[in-house]
């Protein structure tokens, strides 16, 4: 993740140049994401899986940066990599991972699961192959510098006016509250 990368993109696009660096970054980040995604589902040890997942998350954050979504990338790092993954590691340490890493790793119906996933993959492949024409072959240049402000406007609205997603935002905060209470009640021995 080169922080100067998005800046490079802007400059290259502005200058009418082909952003030659972009494909390289894309392939590196995409390869990293998929490779560590494979590691997530194949490792015996849950801590290794978690570390691989962190790599995936950071790579996806890099892809967000390439998509002119710096705020989402920041949220991805701070919430996913810094928050959720610490929670995961915390739980992994609390539960007995050593026993489970010595046991059978895949459940008895794993062929069925794999077949279902392959069917899904086939669906995706056919969709992408058939519907290729549906996707305009374009990537719009989003205003990167005011990205945060625009998202804020959509979430909270402007002076005196509710934003498009203000209500949804409030619902989301309620969801988080419920989740906090639920987690506390389930895990605390004595309340």
């Amino acid at each position, binding site marked *: 993740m080169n922080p100067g990368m998005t800046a490079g993109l802007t400059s290259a696009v502005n200058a009418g140049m082909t952003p030659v660096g972009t494909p390289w970054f894309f392939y590196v980040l995409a390869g990293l994401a998929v490779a560590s995604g494979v590691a997530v589902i194949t490792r015996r040890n849950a801590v290794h899986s978690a570390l691989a997942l962190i790599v995936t998350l950071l790579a996806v954050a890099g892809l967000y940066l390439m998509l002119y979504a710096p705020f989402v990338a920041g949220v991805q790092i701070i919430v996913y990599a810094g928050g959720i993954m610490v929670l995961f590691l915390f739980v992994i*340490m*609390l*539960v*007995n*991972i*050593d*026993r489970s890493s010595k046991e059978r790793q895949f459940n008895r119906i794993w062929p069925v699961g794999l077949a279902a996933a392959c069917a899904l993959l086939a669906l995706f492949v056919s969709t992408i192959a058939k519907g290729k024409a549906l996707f305009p072959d374009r990537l719009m240049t989003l205003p990167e510098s005011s990205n945060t402000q625009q998202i804020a406007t959509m979430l909270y609205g402007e002076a005196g006016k509710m934003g498009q997603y203000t209500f949804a935002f409030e619902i989301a905060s309620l969801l988080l509250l419920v989740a906090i209470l639920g987690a506390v009640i389930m895990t605390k*021995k*004595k309340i």
Partner: protein
Amino acid sequence: MSDRTSDASNRAPSDVDRSNLDYGTPDKTYLDSNELIINMGPQHPATHGVLRVILKLDGEKVLGTECVIGYLHRGVEKIAENRTYTMFNPYVDRMDYCAAVSNGLGYCEAVEKLMNVEAPARAKYIRVILTELQRIASHQLWLGTHALDIGAMTPLFYTFRDREEILKIFERYCGARLTTHAFRIGGCQYETYAGFEKDVKNFLAFFAPKIDEYEALLTTNRIWLERTKNVGVISGADCIALGVTGPLLRASGVKWDLRKAQPYAAYSEFDFEIPTGVNGDTYDRYMVRMKEMRQSMRIIEQAVSGIPEGPIMGKVPKVIKPPVGEIYHSIEAPKGELGYFIVSDGSTQPYRLRVRPPSFVNLQALDLMVRGLLVADVIAVIGTIDIVLGEVDR
């Protein structure tokens, strides 16, 4: 916690039979997986030597402790049976090496009592001065290490700087700093050197502001208060039941000090107070010891200005051969009641010598004091008990 870690620790303390020990029960509503057994020590920065404490934890909460001692056992009591009374005198310094003078005083007075001789008045005064200096030095060492355990680094260096002055006086008096061997049976070996009184008075003038300095760092420090108030509480009744003595007992509100209760040496001639606490928590013990240092300074001041002239050695034979009999004599060492029980068969060597070390007895209270507290409090409580492993293990 994961099994592989607890497996390892289940093996470690296997040399102790813990089958019949009650650690208290964790919350039974769940199959609890959080019990963790930790070996604290014998190599640990905060166990003041080679104490090993087996902690049973629920998360960080202490369910029970068990002290494993003996890593510094040298068989002092057995050695005593093979040494003459005089030859054994230096050994007692090696028990509580932080308060060697007090140990020597207790031993010499016990043998004197057994032989029915009395040290001359001047010797008694010298003994009081040195013992009280030693008390201050011991408390300084305790304060520094106790504060370090709780995380305050700086007091350690301040106390060691000031303890140095006391050790210098010891060195000038008897040539040794730590294991002083200052007293002999029947009195003192050495007359005070020229300028002894001046040195002691200088020290008192030097030290009075230093206590204020320690207190400025700690006494009203918010973090210090939070770490010590209501931590390791023990009641006076529990103290008495367990035989706990010294500052621990006094901090629990029991006004018991052998210097007043059974005056020995020349203590009956001095005017001083016994500081006591109310709550019996770590903070009270800290305050009691700080006040004790000030009281010790009072005693030294009176002793130094009123030191009588005269001989320093009583009438003792060249070969010390106490009559058949037994004696128990105890003094108020810095850490509590230090007692010597000597059985004599009339020969030059004790038939049996038994030491009642204050640290050893006080350490029993550890389990009572730390149950239900957190790991960090165990450290604070071990510090506040003020143990010296040389004395615990002997």
